[in-house]
């Protein structure tokens, strides 16, 4: 029953979020602020994570591909496919759900417990639209760029670390990257990223918006938001892979 209650309330919450902004000028200003807060501020983390992901995949493949019958360039190819299809989309989103999701829940939850949201309502402002709509647009806008950035730095990380540790030569690695490239995989992952961005911005917003109590409850809501967002990302990964790869 609790599950259905939350699902119902989540959709009625979304109906409130997606309504006409009070002032378009204010809406766009807030959206740009959120692109900075939630997106641009995540670039550093994305770069670091992607370099290490690319490097570790390359080293693992190099150390495990020991058969002389398998060409060495497969290491580069494998790294590329893993990054493009799963690591730079799903794994990155799982990690960003922690960073962006907890940020959104704690910000909105704190506003709820300190009556700032009530204060907006008293002024006749649709607080759900005012606070959350710009966040959703910002995250959906920035996620494809973060994905592209992640793929790029993941591949660079694999090249730099793989070659400097002597796991693969630069020529073999680059040959692997260029071998049997399927552009559709990029489109597929960008579509996935748009869904993940929606989940990462709406589920934590929902948990923050309906929090009751004090600081302890905001912390609990943040944790629930991240866990449930991660679960939904994995479920959507399964569904989208099934739908878009058939």
């Amino acid at each position, binding site marked *: 029953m609790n599950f259905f209650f939350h699902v119902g309330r989540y959709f009625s919450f979304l109906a409130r979020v997606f309504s006409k902004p*009070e*002032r378009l000028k*204010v809406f766009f200003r807030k959206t740009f602020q959120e692109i900075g807060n939630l997106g641009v501020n995540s670039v550093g983390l994305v770069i670091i994570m992607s370099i290490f992901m690319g490097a570790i995949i390359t080293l693992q493949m190099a150390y495990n591909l020991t058969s002389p019958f398998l060409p060495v360039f497969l290491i580069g190819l494998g790294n590329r496919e893993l990054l493009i299809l799963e690591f730079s989309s799903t794994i990155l989103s799982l990690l960003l759900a922690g960073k962006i999701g907890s940020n959104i829940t704690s910000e909105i939850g704190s*506003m709820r417990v*300190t*009556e*700032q949201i*009530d*204060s907006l*309502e*008293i*002024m*006749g*402002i649709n607080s759900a639209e005012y606070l959350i709509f710009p966040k959703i647009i910002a995250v959906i806008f920035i996620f494809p760029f973060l994905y592209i950035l992640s793929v790029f730095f993941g591949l660079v990380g694999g090249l730099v670390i793989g070659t400097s540790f002597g796991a693969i030569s630069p020529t073999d690695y680059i040959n692997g990257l260029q071998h049997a490239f399927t552009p559709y995989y990029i489109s597929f992952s960008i579509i996935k990223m748009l869904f993940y961005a929606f989940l990462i911005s709406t589920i934590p917003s929902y948990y923050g918006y309906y929090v009751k109590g004090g600081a302890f409850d905001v912390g609990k809501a943040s944790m629930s938001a991240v866990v449930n967002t991660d679960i939904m990302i994995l479920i959507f990964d399964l569904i989208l892979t099934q739908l878009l790869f058939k």
Partner: protein
Amino acid sequence: MIKVEKLYKSFDNKAVLKNISVGFEKGKTNLVIGRSGSGKTVLLKSIVGLFQVDSGNIYYDQRNFVTMKPEEKKNLRKEMGMVFQGGALFDSLTVEQNVGFPLELFTKKTKLEKSKRVSFCLDRVNIKPEFFKSFPSEISGGMQKRVAIARAIVLEPHYLFCDEPNSGLDPETSLVIDNLIHEITIDLDITTIINTHDMNSVMRIGDKIIFIRDGQLQWEGTKNEIMKTEDKNLQHFVFANNLYFRNK
């Protein structure tokens, strides 16, 4: 004038407001008093529409808030100002941005006009210009309350609501806040409702006093009448401090 008729509100089948009918007069400071947990905040939040009532009517100058369409409620809310217990200032905005926030959203004033209005309101609540660029976390609790009052009056509301505006403040600052609310009520000729359990406020600015006990309207009258009340519960509430010291 605000009139409440047969108001009921419950949470999880527990009645918090029981058949409350009362009128709040224009140009006067109407004080709602009662012990913690008596239902004061629920009454105030029900009147402003933050809580949906189970039954009853709330009239804002003959306009029934309960039966209004959402768009009408939204328009009426632009006539309301509210000061919350903790101030509820937006912590990501500076003092002047907080006060200018309603102007930014609901008026088409120029930047200069907005700035003038913000300065006027902040000056009205005695906030010095050197604090205009400060964030709420950088100013004292008393100043936060004053900024909250400035924000509440920036759109020249017809109805002002204050939920325990003196909580957590020293007696001197409480006096300043009380006088400020009282002056604003008279100057703007608005209907003001204040939730409080501070008897000093009651005696200073209580033009009309409503005593709530266990979610029910127990007594109503003026500050002069409250001293002569025969109601035992109200006597106990009003003279709680005196009784304590006398028993000692």
